[in-house]
C-alpha cells in the first residue's frame, strides 16, 4: 500500500515545496563543502579541491532539476506520460481497440440518448409558474379509469362552488379553417378559457391575453397566436397585433402572441381562442363537448384536499342534474401526471433495455481487457522487476481503460445523435410524446455522456487492472503461470455467463414485442383499406348552419361520385377506429331502461348510403341505407355484430327499436331508432379492440364535418386534386385534408412498431456483444491452456478431440448462461404485459427461439478459437513457458 503514502506525501509536498527547494540549495552547498574539505585534506589546493569536488558531484543543474522533479507533484506529468503510453499501447492492438471502442460507443450512446428523452419528456419541470400547484380536471364513470371530457354546465358549477381551486379554466382542442395570409388551412388550436392563462401563470410575449369579460361576454372575437404560427405562416410581420385572422369564416382580431415553444400540457396549438359563451349558456349546455379543465390549487391547499372537495361538489351535482351526472365523478391529476402518464410505461421499458445494453457492453470490454492481459504478462513482469510499484502499474492500466472509455464516450455522442434522429423519425408526429421535438445534444446530455463514459471506464477498468497486476507479481515470484491464470479464467467465465444471460433477456423481450406487433399488423380491420382515398372537409360554422352544411356535403358527394375513376364514394362524420366519433348511451325501447350506472354506450356514426359498399364492410342481415331514409322518414339505424350481442343477446334485432342519447336532425333527442340492418364489426388496429357501433344516415344525424371515402381502381392519390377541386369549386375557403385510408390505418400502429423496432435493435446489439464476449473468453482460455493442449497432442490426442474439448467448454458456459437468462427473462418479461397484444409474457415459442439463436451464435463464436487450439503444433505449445 505504499502508493497511498506516496500519494499523501505528494499532496503534502505541494505546501512544502518552497521550503524543500531552499533546503536543497543548502544541502548541496554542505555536500560540496564537505567534499572540498576532503580533497584539501588529501593535499590539493583550495581551488583544485573545489574544482574536483564539483566534478565528483556531476552536473549541478541536472541534479537540481531531477531533485526538483521529485519535489514537484509530478502527478500531472506522470498522468500525461501514462496517457501517451496508453494511447500507444492501444494503437498497437487496433482490432481490440476498435472492438472495445465500438462496443462502448453503442452502450454509452444509447444510454445518453434515452437519458435525454427521459429528461426532456419526464424530468424537466413544466414551463409554468409553480407547476406542481396546477391540476387537470376530467370526468369519469364511477369506478372507471377512462378520462372523459367535462360538461360545461358542471364547469360553471365548480367555478362557483370550489374553495380549494382557483382560476378554473377549460381547455379543448379545436380544428378550424384558418385564413391568415392567403389560402385557408385546417389548423389545430385550442379553445382556452381566459382563466387558463392565470392557472398556468403565463402571459403572451406580445400583446395581451383576453379577459374574462371578453371570454364570457362573447362579443369581440379575439385570438392569441402561437409564436411558431406568427413566424411561420405570417412571416413574423411586425404589425401582427390588431391584424385580422379568419377562423371558420369568423373574423377575429389578434391581440397577443405567445412566447416561443409554448404548449399547453405538451399540446401544440397554433392559436388560442376563448370559448365566447356566456355563463348562462354554458350552464344550460347539455352534453359534454370535448374539453377538460385546468386549475391552480389555492395557497396552502393540498392536492388531496382539493380532490375530496371536488368529489363532494360532484356528488351534489349528481343529485341536482341526474341525467347528466348520474353514476359519474370527477378525476383530478397533477399537471405533470397528465402529460406523462400515458408514455411512462414505454419510456421505462426503454430505460430498462438501455441499461441492460450498457451493462453488457461493460462486461464485454472488461472481458476483452482480461483476455488481452494474458499477452501482457511478460511486459508487466518486467516493469515490476525494474521497480514499478503495483500502484503505479494499476494507475497505468487504469489510464488505458479511461482512454478507451473516453474514446467510447466521444463516439457515443455520435451514436446518441443518431439515436435522436432515429427516434424522431420513428416516433415523430405520429405519437404525441410530449416535447419530443425539444431533444437536443445540449450541455446536460453531453455531461451525462461523459460521466457515463467515466463510470463505465472505472467499472470495466478496475477489475482487469487489479487482476492482471496481481498475477504479474505472482508470476515473477513463483516462475509459473498456472495459479493466476486459473483464477482469471474463472472470472472471465462468470462474466461471459452473465453476458449471455443478459442477451437472452433482451432477445426474449424483443421477440415478444415483434410478434405482438406482427399480430397487430395482421388484424383484420373489418374493412378494406387499400384503394381508398379519404378527404376531410370542415365548413365554417358562421356561414353554414347544419341544414346548409348537409346540403353542401350531399352535393359534393354526388359530384365526387361522378368523377372518372371513382368506383364508390361515401361520407362519414369520423374516421375508422380509433377515430373520434360521438360516443353516447344506448338502450332498448322494448325493455325497461337500465339504471344509469349500467347504461351501455356505443359509437354513433352518421354515414351516407354507399358507405358499406365503399369500405367493403359485409352486411350480415337486413338492409343498408338508401335515399328514402330522410330527415322526415322513420329514424333508422344499422348496428354492428357486437352491439347485437350486447343489447339483443339471442333476439333478432331487426325491427326492434333503440333509444340513442343524441340529437336528431329535427332537434329532438327522444326519437326511437329502428334497427334495419346488421353489419360486421370493425376493429381498431391500435389495440385490436372491437367496439359496438351504430350507423345512422347523415340525413337523420347531421354532422358539421364530413370525411369522404372514395374507392378507386387506380392509385388513390391520383384523385386527390380532383376531389379537392370539387370542394373548392363550391367553397373556396374550406380546407380539405386528403390522405389514403391505408395511411390513416398505418398511423395507428406507429407506437407499437416504434417500440418493437427499438427493442429489436437493442437485442441485436446485445447479441453481437455476447458473441464477442464468448469469442474473447474462448481465445483466452485456449492461450491459457496452451501447455495442457500441447501435452495432450503430444500424448496422442487427435486434433478433433482437442476441438471438441474447447468447444465443449464454451458450450457448457453458454448453456449455464442461457439457463440463467431464461429464468431472468421469465421474471422480467412480465413487465411488458401492458405492451403486448395476444402474446403471453411467457410465450414458450419465443423463449425457445431466443435460446436456440444464442446457442448458434455462441457456437460460431467459439469455432475460431477452437480451431486454433486444434491446429497448434505440440512442440510450440510445450515451448511456451
Amino acid at each position, binding site marked *: 500500500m505504499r502508493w497511498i503514502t506516496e500519494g499523501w506525501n*505528494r499532496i503534502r509536498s505541494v505546501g512544502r515545496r518552497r521550503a524543500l527547494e531552499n533546503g536543497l540549495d543548502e*544541502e*548541496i552547498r*554542505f*555536500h560540496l563543502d564537505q567534499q572540498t574539505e576532503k580533497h584539501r585534506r588529501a593535499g590539493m589546493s583550495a581551488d583544485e579541491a573545489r574544482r574536483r569536488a564539483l566534478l565528483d558531484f556531476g552536473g549541478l543543474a541536472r541534479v537540481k532539476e531531477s531533485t526538483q522533479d521529485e519535489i514537484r507533484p509530478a502527478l500531472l506529468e506522470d498522468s500525461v506520460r501514462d496517457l501517451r503510453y496508453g494511447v500507444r499501447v492501444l494503437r498497437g492492438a487496433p482490432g481490440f481497440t476498435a472492438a472495445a471502442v465500438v462496443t462502448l460507443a453503442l452502450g454509452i450512446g444509447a444510454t445518453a440518448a434515452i437519458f435525454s428523452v427521459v429528461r426532456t419528456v419526464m424530468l424537466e419541470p413544466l414551463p409554468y409558474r409553480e407547476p406542481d400547484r396546477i391540476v387537470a380536471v376530467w370526468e369519469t364513470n364511477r369506478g372507471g379509469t377512462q378520462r372523459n371530457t367535462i360538461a360545461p354546465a358542471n364547469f360553471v358549477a365548480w367555478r362557483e362552488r370550489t374553495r380549494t381551486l382557483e382560476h378554473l379554466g377549460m381547455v379543448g382542442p379545436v380544428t378550424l379553417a384558418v385564413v391568415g395570409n392567403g389560402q385557408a388551412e385546417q389548423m389545430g388550436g385550442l379553445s382556452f378559457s381566459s382563466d387558463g392563462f392565470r392557472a398556468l401563470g403565463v402571459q403572451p410575449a406580445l400583446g395581451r391575453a383576453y379577459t374574462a369579460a371578453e371570454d364570457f361576454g362573447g362579443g369581440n372575437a379575439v385570438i392569441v397566436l402561437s409564436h411558431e404560427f406568427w413566424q411561420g405562416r405570417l412571416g413574423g410581420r411586425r404589425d401582427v397585433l390588431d391584424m385580422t385572422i379568419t377562423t371558420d369564416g369568423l373574423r377575429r382580431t389578434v391581440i397577443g402572441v405567445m412566447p416561443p415553444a409554448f404548449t399547453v400540457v405538451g399540446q401544440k396549438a397554433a392559436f388560442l381562442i376563448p370559448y365566447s359563451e356566456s355563463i348562462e349558456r354554458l350552464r344550460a349546455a347539455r352534453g359534454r363537448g370535448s374539453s377538460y379543465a385546468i386549475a391552480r390549487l389555492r395557497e396552502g391547499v393540498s392536492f388531496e384536499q382539493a380532490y375530496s372537495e371536488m368529489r363532494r361538489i360532484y356528488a351534489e351535482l349528481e343529485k341536482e342534474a341526474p341525467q347528466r351526472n348520474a353514476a359519474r365523478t370527477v378525476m383530478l391529476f397533477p399537471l405533470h401526471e397528465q402529460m406523462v402518464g400515458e408514455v411512462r410505461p414505454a419510456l421505462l421499458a426503454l430505460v430498462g433495455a438501455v441499461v441492460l445494453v450498457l451493462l453488457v457492453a461493460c462486461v464485454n470490454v472488461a472481458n476483452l481487457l482480461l483476455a488481452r492481459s494474458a499477452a501482457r504478462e511478460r511486459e508487466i513482469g518486467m516493469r515490476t522487476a*525494474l*521497480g514499478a510499484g503495483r500502484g503505479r502499474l494499476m494507475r497505468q492500466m487504469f489510464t488505458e481503460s479511461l482512454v478507451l472509455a473516453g474514446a467510447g464516450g466521444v463516439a457515443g455522442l455520435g451514436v446518441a445523435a443518431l439515436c435522436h434522429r432515429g427516434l424522431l423519425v420513428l416516433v415523430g408526429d405520429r405519437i404525441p410524446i410530449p416535447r419530443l421535438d425539444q431533444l437536443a445534444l445540449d450541455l446536460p446530455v453531453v455531461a451525462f455522456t461523459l460521466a457515463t463514459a467515466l463510470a463505465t471506464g472505472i467499472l470495466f477498468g478496475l477489475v482487469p487492472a487489479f487482476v492482471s497486476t496481481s498475477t504479474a507479481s505472482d508470476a515473477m515470484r513463483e516462475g509459473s503461470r498456472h495459479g493466476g491464470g486459473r483464477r482469471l479464467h474463472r472470472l472471465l467465465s462468470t462474466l461471459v455467463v452473465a453476458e449471455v444471460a443478459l442477451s437472452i433477456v433482451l432477445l426474449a423481450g424483443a421477440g415478444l414485442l415483434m410478434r405482438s406487433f406482427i399480430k397487430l399488423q395482421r388484424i383484420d380491420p373489418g374493412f378494406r383499406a387499400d384503394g381508398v382515398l379519404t378527404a376531410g372537409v370542415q365548413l365554417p360554422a358562421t356561414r353554414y348552419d347544419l341544414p346548409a352544411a348537409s346540403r353542401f356535403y350531399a352535393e359534393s358527394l354526388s359530384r365526387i361520385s361522378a368523377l372518372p375513376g371513382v368506383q364508390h364514394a361515401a361520407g362519414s362524420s369520423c374516421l375508422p377506429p380509433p377515430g373520434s366519433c360521438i360516443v353516447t348511451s344506448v338502450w332498448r325501447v322494448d325493455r325497461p331502461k337500465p339504471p344509469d350506472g349500467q347504461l351501455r354506450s356505443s359509437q354513433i356514426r352518421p354515414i351516407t348510403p354507399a358507405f358499406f359498399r365503399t369500405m367493403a364492410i359485409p352486411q350480415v342481415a337486413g338492409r343498408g341505407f338508401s335515399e328514402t331514409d330522410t330527415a322526415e322518414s322513420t329514424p333508422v339505424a344499422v348496428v354492428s355484430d357486437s352491439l347485437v350481442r350486447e343489447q339483443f343477446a339471442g333476439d333478432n334485432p331487426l325491427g326492434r327499436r333503440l333509444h340513442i342519447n343524441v340529437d336528431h336532425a329535427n332537434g329532438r333527442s327522444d326519437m326511437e331508432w329502428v334497427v334495419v340492418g346488421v353489419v360486421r364489426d370493425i376493429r381498431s388496429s391500435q389495440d385490436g379492440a372491437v367496439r359496438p357501433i351504430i350507423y345512422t344516415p347523415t340525413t337523420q344525424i347531421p354532422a358539421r364535418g364530413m370525411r369522404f371515402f372514395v374507392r378507386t381502381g387506380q392509385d388513390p392519390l391520383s384523385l386527390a386534386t380532383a376531389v379537392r377541386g370539387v370542394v373548392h369549386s363550391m367553397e373556396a375557403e374550406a380546407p380539405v385534408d386528403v390522405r389514403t385510408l391505408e395511411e390513416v390505418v398505418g398511423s395507428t400502429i406507429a407506437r407499437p412498431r416504434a417500440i418493437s423496432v427499438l427493442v429489436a435493435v437493442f437485442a441485436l446489439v446485445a447479441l453481437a456483444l455476447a458473441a464477442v464476449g464468448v469469442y474473447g473468453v474462448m481465445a483466452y482460455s485456449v492461450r491459457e491452456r496452451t501447455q495442457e493442449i500441447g501435452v495432450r497432442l503430444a500424448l496422442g490426442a487427435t486434433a478433433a478431440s482437442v476441438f471438441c474439448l474447447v468447444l465443449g467448454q464454451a458450450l457448457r458456459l453458454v448453456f449455464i448462461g442461457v439457463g440463467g437468462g431464461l429464468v431472468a427473462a421469465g421474471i422480467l418479461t412480465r413487465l411488458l404485459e401492458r405492451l403486448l397484444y395476444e402474446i403471453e409474457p411467457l410465450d414458450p415459442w419465443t423463449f425457445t427461439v431466443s435460446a436456440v439463436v444464442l446457442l448458434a451464435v455462441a457456437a460460431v463464436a467459439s469455432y475460431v478459437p477452437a480451431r486454433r487450439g486444434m491446429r497448434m503444433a505440440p512442440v510450440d505449445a510445450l515451448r511456451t513457458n
Partner: protein
Amino acid sequence: MAKERGDLLQGTLDMLVLKALQLEPMHGWGITERIEQWSESVLQLGQGTLYPALYRLERQGLIRSEWKVTENNRQARFYSLTRAGRRHFSDELAQWRRMSRAINLVLETT
C-alpha cells in the same frame, strides 16, 4: 537503453541508501562516502545522483529527514529509516537472495 539502465541502477541505488541508513541516521554526503566504500561504480554518474533518490525515497515514505547540527556546527539535513523503510528493505533483501540463489543453481548445473 540508457533509461533502462538508469531504472535498474535506480533500484540498486535505493537498496544501497537503505542499507547505509540501517545503522544510524546520516546526511547526504555521509551516505555518499559510505556507498563509495562499498562500490564506486554506482556513483559513476556523479555523487549528485544521490539526491533525487533521497527525495524520492522520502516521498515514498521509506525514509524521513530533519535538519540537525553536525560536529562542525554546520546545519545539515539528516535522513533516517522509517519503519516502512526497514520492512521494505528486508522484503527486497529476501527477494534478492531468493532470485540469486535460483540463478546460482542454474549456473552451477552444467
